């Protein structure tokens, strides 16, 4: 089944916005609706934006009224940088519950749900396998609030898939993404003059480029991929390797014992290392990406190339700063441009 009427949640996040930009260029897609509780941060041609509450409580009405056949949920908070623990919990647990409720039910028009999750589902522990496959679970209960929220959200999605066997449910577990437009804990850490590390540890890291990230989401929307898929580029790097690819020294500023105390002190100095990243800096993580590759997704870049490309973007950043006005969403302007009869549109477009 190819998707015609698509709803994207989390339009204000990087992932949702970029995905909507790609989808709206596809003429076979009739309708693109984006929802989020904040204004979108990128320019959109024909995507209709609806502002909803954090809990997405009224989503069911939108889904039914617009006869949405595909819901792409990109809104999950996967980085402590994005939101406070309380907001993240509301969004990840209650939000997921409501979005799934909007997609389910006997008369629901929804035939496909794509759920963007995170490799934080697996956690980072001492006795992890070197490559997590989709069938594996974390060996210990989650250590941080964010991780347990992600696990709980996935559990809700799993339950939804069982109750609605005629809906194709795709769960995508993404590794850390890098790219010039992304703002995550890792892009911030890698922008520092030296890459922070825990003394005595050289964890394994896997990345995905932001373009591949959008590509994977689009791929999942186009195909029928029921089940869980890891989304990670080829190659697992060591943190020391990442630092040398970025052209920066590795700074083991965090002590092996009492690292979370030291991380607290660092955050006072403006360097934020949240709990889930601290676990990664200690034990690292690798994912087996062969299932999605086998389903036909061709990754454009490997982990190493992703880091190299990110390094180029980091070097170019000071030159680009202040070059263009950042995009700002203004409802009245958008509505005028889209609906006013006075606006002259080139023939053939909607």
């Amino acid at each position, binding site marked *: *089944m190819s998707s015609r009427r698509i709803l994207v949640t989390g339009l204000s996040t990087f992932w949702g916005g970029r995905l909507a930009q790609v989808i709206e260029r596809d003429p076979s897609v009739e309708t693109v609706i984006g929802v989020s509780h904040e204004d979108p941060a990128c320019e959109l041609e024909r995507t209709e934006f609806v502002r909803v509450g954090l809990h997405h409580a009224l989503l069911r009405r939108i889904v039914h009224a617009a006869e949405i056949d595909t819901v792409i949920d990109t809104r999950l908070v996967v980085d402590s940088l994005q939101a406070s623990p309380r907001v993240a919990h509301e969004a990840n647990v209650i939000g997921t519950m409501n979005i799934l409720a909007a997609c389910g039910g006997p008369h629901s028009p929804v035939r496909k749900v794509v759920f963007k999750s995170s490799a934080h589902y697996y956690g980072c522990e*001492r006795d*992890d396998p070197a490559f997590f496959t989709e069938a594996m679970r974390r060996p210990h209960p989650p250590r941080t609030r964010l991780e347990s929220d992600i696990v709980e959200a996935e559990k809700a999605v799993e339950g939804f898939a069982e109750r609605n066997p005629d809906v*194709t449910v795709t769960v995508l577990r993404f590794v850390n993404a890098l790219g010039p437009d992304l703002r995550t804990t890792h892009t911030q850490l890698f922008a520092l003059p030296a890459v922070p590390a825990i003394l*005595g*540890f050289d964890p394994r890291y896997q990345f995905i480029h932001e373009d591949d990230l959008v590509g994977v989401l689009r791929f999942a929307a186009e195909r029928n991929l029921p089940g869980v898929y890891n989304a990670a580029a080829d190659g697992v790097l060591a943190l020391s390797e990442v630092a040398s690819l970025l052209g920066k020294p590795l700074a083991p500023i965090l002590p092996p014992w009492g690292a979370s105390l030291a991380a607290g002190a660092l955050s006072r100095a403006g360097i934020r290392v949240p709990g889930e990243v601290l676990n990664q800096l200690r034990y690292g993580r690798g994912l087996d990406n062969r299932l999605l590759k086998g389903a036909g997704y061709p990754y454009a870049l490997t982990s190493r190339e992703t880091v190299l490309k990110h390094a180029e973007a980091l070097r170019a950043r000071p030159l680009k700063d202040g070059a263009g006005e950042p995009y700002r969403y203004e409802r009245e302007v958008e509505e005028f441009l889209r609906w006013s009869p006075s606006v002259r549109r080139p023939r053939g477009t909607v």
Partner: protein
Amino acid sequence: MKQLPAAPAGEEELRALLPAIEPDRQLTDWGRSERVEGLIDATLYEFLYHYWFRCEVEGIENVPGAGGALLVANHAGALPPDAAMIAKAIKEEHPRPRPLHLTVEHFFKGYPGLAMLVNKLGGVPAHPANVHRLLHDERQLVLVFPEGRKGSEKLYKDRYRLRRFGRGGFVEAAMRARAPIVPVAVVGAEEAMPTFAQIGVLQRLTRLIYFPVTPLFPHLGLLGTAYLPAKFRIRFLEPIATDQWGADPSDDKGLVQTVAEEVRSRIQEELIDMVSKRRSVWFG
């Protein structure tokens, strides 16, 4: 356009989907570093293998030149030198030298310093999924010590007496990967760094897996990690095929235990034979 759900990929397909090797990288996806390993190999291992332990190797032809194989050896010495010497033996004596992946306890991944070093030297955490991927998908040589720390922490008075072989997990891994098991008997490691006692208090204080008293440690500090010059003999025994018992023999726990016990007794007999023929601990 209607699309079928992705069919579960077959074994060969999964193998073809393994990431390609990037020639510009010095590390593998497992974190193994050619540079660090090469450096240690050319200096320390070279010296230990040829001059200090004067390793003598028998039965190197029992190590397959291609495909996955699980090497199973006895484990000894407070800071066991046996793994490095077995890896070096394959590098030096085998007509087709291949890298050897050594399974290590999860402890190493959690201990600062060791965590950085061990996987650069070819250590892989002893997780069944790791062993399966290496043996089955990547078709590599993997070395396991089923005794684990029970072998290396045992006291000098128990030398060359094999401990319990875990729960037979190594046999299951080999069966599932359909890779042969090559038993390996090593003589010399027990005398290279014998343990006379274990100090529990210091073990808890340092958070190491154990804190041994050896002839030179702990009273000589870091110098105490030096080995005594025992003569090493490494014997690779005839491989045991694991694809002779039908499609999925790893479900049969009885068979797994039988094979594990057979591997153990073959190594034990070989050790008794080698030790009884040895005239001197130091000169062989």
